[in-house]
């Protein structure tokens, strides 16, 4: 078997009975055993469940009754997704030993599609506190260089997908937590429109900005996962009530005539991105132009305006979620989470209402500015991943975020790899579309990935074996 398969490749091989779901699952379990002592991407590996799921998928394969392209595909969930009978920790001492009795809606949907559940993935504590070294489990490490940050908070998903331990996985995105690990780990991650995927059973960070979505190696794989994850759910008050179109239908239709607006001021002046990131953007513009897209320049509100609005809403809502434990178990949180969220305690009701009024203004202004384009293009992260021990606690307050704008507006946005920096780690571009236009985003991302060589390169550690000595892990294979 090839060392690395995308979901689309594996689905074709399973449909043709060239490989079995059991072989594929055992292959991934072996990779987890070999690589995860360094990467720490898993908090819990559900080996028995994975083998059971794989055998069931294999039976369907042999009976000619596969449920679809995700049947038999090994995936894992960020450990804020509740899983019945399987510990769900949110990477927090507060939830150590917590075993939900019900699956999150998205977990249920992916299981119904036939996915093989490999386990639960590292996150920043409650999707916000990290990377942290004062928690029961270590932070996930970047497969391109384990001394470096994965991005977060869907850190385990980013690392595990990039290293080929799973073929795809779930994340959540409140200020960039799908797109940041996708960018820094060199994979693809899409934050869908607010309300497209149910958050029922996903532990909240900030209700009005939380999004559920997938991460995978390619846009095509994300399209397959998102199609299975999306759709109405009465259990989520924010559900948009919309069914998802089959994103694969038009995925290969190309982008001739697509109108792409470059938000140059975001990455050139508002928060100047690294030379490698800017080079990736410049090359992406050339690629899109060569594929037939029409390139324009779009001016949005200053990046700082979105960042101020988004982060302060997040802090206020996060304190509301965590108030009880912040008052009664402050020291059980990691410092990164408790100190950040404590600031939310000091925001007033008037502040929150002003933030929500500003949010409406920004959303209306963004929609107006995008009237003449189909999507916008900018950076996703300022540069390649920093060292994991050099991520500042107050960084979110210092420099404006490239990802937060689209949590404020709720628009769909995707991160795709656009090259590598001087340190050998990936850099990325970000595309954002109009609400519920995920199909357009995925089509553009897929066209870009097909036209460039970035999807053919995997982390050396994942290809050649372990580069570092192994460290102790918090939990073993169960």
């Amino acid at each position, binding site marked *: 078997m090839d060392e690395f398969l995308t979901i689309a490749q594996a689905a074709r091989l399973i449909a043709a009975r060239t490989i079995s779901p059991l072989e594929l699952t055992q292959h991934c379990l072996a990779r987890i055993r070999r690589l995860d002592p360094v990467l720490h991407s898993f908090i819990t590996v559900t080996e028995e469940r994975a083998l059971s799921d794989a055998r069931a998928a294999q039976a369907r394969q042999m009976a000619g009754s596969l449920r679809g392209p995700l049947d038999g595909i090994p995936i894992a969930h960020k450990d804020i997704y509740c899983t019945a009978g399987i510990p769900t920790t949110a990477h927090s001492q507060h939830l150590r030993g917590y075993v939900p009795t019900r699956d999150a809606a998205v977990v249920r949907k992916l299981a119904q599609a036939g996915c093989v559940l490999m386990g639960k993935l590292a996150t920043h504590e409650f999707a916000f506190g990290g990377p942290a070294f004062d928690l029961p489990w270590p932070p996930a490490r970047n497969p391109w260089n384990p001394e470096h940050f994965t991005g977060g908070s869907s850190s385990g998903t980013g690392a595990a997908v990039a290293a080929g331990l799973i073929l795809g996985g779930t994340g959540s995105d409140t200020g960039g937590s799908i797109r940041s690990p996708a960018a820094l780990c060199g994979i693809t991650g899409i934050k869908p429109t607010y309300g497209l995927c149910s958050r029922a059973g996903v532990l909240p960070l900030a209700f*009005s900005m939380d999004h559920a979505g997938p991460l995978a190696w390619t846009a095509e794989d994300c399209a397959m996962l998102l199609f299975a994850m999306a759709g109405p759910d009465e259990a989520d*008050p924010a559900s948009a009530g919309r069914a998802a179109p089959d994103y694969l239908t038009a995925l290969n239709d190309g982008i001739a005539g697509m109108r792409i607006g470059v938000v140059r001021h975001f990455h050139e002046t508002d928060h100047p991105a690294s030379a490698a990131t800017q080079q990736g953007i410049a090359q992406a513009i050339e690629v899109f132009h060569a594929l037939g897209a029409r390139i324009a320049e779009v001016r949005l509100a200053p990046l*700082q*305006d979105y960042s*101020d*609005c988004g*982060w*302060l809403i997040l*802090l206020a809502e996060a*304190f509301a979620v965590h*108030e009880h434990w*912040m*008052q009664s178990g*402050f020291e059980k949180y990691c410092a990164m989470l408790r*100190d950040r969220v*404590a*600031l939310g*305690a*000091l*925001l007033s009701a008037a*502040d929150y*209402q*002003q*933030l*929500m*009024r*500003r*949010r*409406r*203004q920004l*959303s209306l202004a963004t929609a107006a500015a995008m009237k003449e384009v189909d999507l916008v293009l900018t950076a996703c992260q300022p540069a390649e991943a920093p060292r994991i021990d050099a991520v500042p606690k*107050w960084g979110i*307050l*210092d420099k404006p975020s490239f990802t937060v704008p689209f949590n404020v507006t709720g628009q769909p946005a995707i991160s795709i790899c656009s090259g590598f920096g001087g340190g050998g780690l990936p850099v990325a571009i970000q595309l954002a579309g109009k609400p519920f236009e995920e199909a357009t985003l995925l089509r553009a991302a897929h066209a870009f990935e097909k036209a460039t060589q970035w999807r053919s390169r995997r982390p050396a550690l994942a290809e050649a074996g372990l580069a570092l000595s192994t460290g102790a892990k918090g939990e073993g294979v169960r």
Partner: protein
Amino acid sequence: MARIPIEDFTAAVRRAGLDLNRARITELYAAWEKVEAMLDRIRTPAPPRDAEPATIFKPVKFS
């Protein structure tokens, strides 16, 4: 330095139900200066008096 005096900041922390030591309050106080700047920018220019928030209550969702 934040505009709010540290004594008032400390009182606000306690009113929020957080029992923090002096060192932690000092660190949060330093960070609060940045939050104050963010709030200033959010409030400037002031939105029109009738500007609605983004999450206005919709009774139809509960009918």
